[in-house]
């Protein structure tokens, strides 16, 4: 007897849950040759706003977790991703049209990126902050803190590695994110959501939207409760308009570009806070 396969329904990931788009819309994900692979949820403006609400609600708790704790949570993601390697290879192969070897290399790099960023969780503060020798009887220290809620347009190609490469550095410092996955190859993003949901990442820390980045990104760029806009994967969009929209609430903006792992990506989503305290005369 052959087993009749059970195709997966791909949904959104918002606040730790897997809702369909409130709009009821889906779109067809196809292979490079045009063959039907799956339906994916086509997120709406309302979904994007729900995701920001979830991200904001989760942010203080995630930021107040210790760096050691956040590091372990990120490392746990790598562990679970490793265990589900085959599934990701298959999804990447079917949607990106690459060989299984290339897909495997991408999954390995994504796993390694989680491990690399996990290690920064309790170290980036030491590297990006410092004590300041001011001219007076004051204790004075500068430390980086997360900016808050980061809205991200993930790279369109390298669907899993691109997504991991923009999400991991944003959350490692205590930000929460709303990320628009690769439109053409969203399957690995939703499967990554399943990994996140089972790896101690609190609900709402990572929210993943699938659908049209061109349609959703403007709502996130202008949303007053988003602190930072990462346009790394927005090269093909009208990203200057997004940057202009973001200026209304003076969001920090990262313009389109490379997604290679770097400490700059971690520090770029932080704010420097400087605290002065008097020293008494003894």
């Amino acid at each position: 007897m052959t087993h009749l396969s059970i195709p997966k329904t791909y949904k959104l990931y918002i606040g730790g849950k897997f809702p369909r788009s409130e709009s009821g819309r889906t779109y067809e994900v196809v292979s490079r040759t045009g063959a039907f692979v799956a339906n994916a949820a086509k997120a709406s403006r309302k979904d994007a706003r729900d995701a920001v609400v979830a991200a904001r609600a989760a942010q203080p708790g995630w930021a107040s977790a210790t760096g050691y704790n956040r590091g372990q949570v990120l490392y746990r993601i790598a562990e679970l991703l490793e265990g589900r390697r085959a599934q990701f290879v298959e999804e990447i192969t079917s949607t990106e049209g690459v060989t299984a070897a290339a897909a495997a290399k991408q999954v390995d790099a994504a796993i390694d990126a989680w491990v690399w960023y996990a290690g920064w969780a309790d170290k980036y503060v030491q590297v990006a902050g410092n004590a300041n020798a001011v001219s007076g009887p004051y204790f004075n220290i500068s430390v980086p803190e997360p900016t808050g809620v980061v809205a991200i347009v993930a790279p369109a190609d390298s669907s899993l590695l691109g997504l991991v490469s923009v999400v991991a550095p944003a959350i490692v410092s205590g930000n929460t994110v709303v990320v628009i996955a690769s439109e053409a190859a969203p399957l690995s993003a939703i499967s990554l959501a399943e990994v996140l949901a089972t790896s101690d990442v609190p609900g709402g820390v990572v929210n993943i939207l699938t659908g049209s980045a061109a349609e959703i990104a403007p709502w996130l760029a202008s949303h007053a409760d988003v602190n930072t806009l990462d346009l790394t994967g927005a090269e093909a969009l009208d990203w200057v308009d997004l940057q202009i929209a973001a200026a209304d609430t003076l969001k920090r903006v990262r313009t389109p570009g490379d997604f290679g792992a770097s400490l700059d990506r971690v520090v770029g989503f932080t704010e420097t806070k400087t605290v002065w305290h008097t020293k008494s005369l003894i």
Partner: protein
Amino acid sequence: MSFLEYAPAPESTAILNLKDSYGLFIDGEFVAGHGEPFATISPATEKHIAEIANADANDVDTAVRAARRAYDRTWSKLSGADRGKYLFRIARLVQERARELAVAESLDNGKPIKESRDVDIPLVAAWFFYYAGWADKLDYAGLGAAPRALGVAAQVIPWNFPLLMLAWKIAPALAAGNTVVLKPAETTPLSALLFAEILQQAELPAGVVNILTGAGDTGQALVQHPDVNKVAFTGSTAVGRAIAKSVAGTGKKLTLELGGKAANIVFDDAPIDQAIEGIVNGIFFNQGHVCCAGSRLLVQENIHDDVVERLKQRLSTLRLGDPLDKNTDIGAINSAEQLERIRELSDIGEAEGAERWTADCAIPENGFWFAPTIFDNVSTSSRIAREEIFGPVLSVLTFRTPAEAISKANNTPYGLSAGIWSDKGSKILAVADELKAGVIWANTFNRFDPASPFGGFKESGYGREGGRHGLAAYLQNSRLEPVETKGVRK
């Protein structure tokens, strides 16, 4: 009548050797501007000080070209050590001419001489001295080995700390290897023009720093000039927004230091005498023309009456008047426009139900003045609790628990600074963790130092000025090349 009569003790203006008119400082020389010249006046007397050239778009272009030429041919070829030596020279010249600069600043800006003499100008010298030492140590700035300068920096500064803001902008820019075109505020160009003379005395190569006087349209032409690599602006959030929009997509690096509505939180276990002085310094320093001013006093409910009573007593001893008088605590409001805005918002505060109290002091006949004012029982929704007044006006609100204080403090789109007063260290550190502000002063307020990064969260802008972090605003990270992760890269 104040509690003690003091004889007038004005600082002499004889030390000043001002010209009748000043040109634009381009390529090492003072040259005529092509816009309609304007007068700069003393806000304390409304008397004419000097005629100031007005840079039009062509002048802006000339200055940017001069800065580009100086960058390509001179400044980028100098060693870091030599750039540093020029900055050290500037620091020393500022120290040598400190009193003259202080008098000019108080004359043109209206701030008390004891502030320009003891705070502004010493910090200007300190800023140049601090960044001078960085010029040959950029490898250690945390931006990878051999970080690169950006090129030409366009800098637009406000009128509240004219020469200090100039130093905050120019010192790190030059240390990092950039050249500069700077526009001082329309109402306070004088000290920047004296600074241009200092640059000539320091024999800074021509074109490395260019100073353009003018109004908003000059600033706009400067930040929008296509050959500018970096834009740095300190001023209002509204203008900051417009600049952020205008540089979108251009690749120009941008730092913004904008408005604030800082909470100054006083717990019932605070050292009250120090806190009273800190509250006064927090909002009445520089007539409240301070973006990080502690304009919202959050006082724990059980000590509210005592704190407000003591504040009123203390404010009654402040001397308002001639900025050049050494005993003056509160100087003149910088301009008629600013005075009008302070009056308007104060009237709104009263209309919205807050209790207004104003110190009883004589207001000089001429000039722009506003007596220290406290609004009590201010509701969180009132405009005087939400909008930056930028004047000597304090809004008092109360809280019962630390959680309520934090939530009220953070209830603003701004995030520049905050103050915490308590004798309990663990409480201070816990509250400091929760405040969304770039600078937090605990048991002190309005402290500035070149080694200490300054800048805001949220709509107070982005980027930091001061310290190692301040260098990052003027350098390209040589470490941007990705590290590690084997395998696929875009």
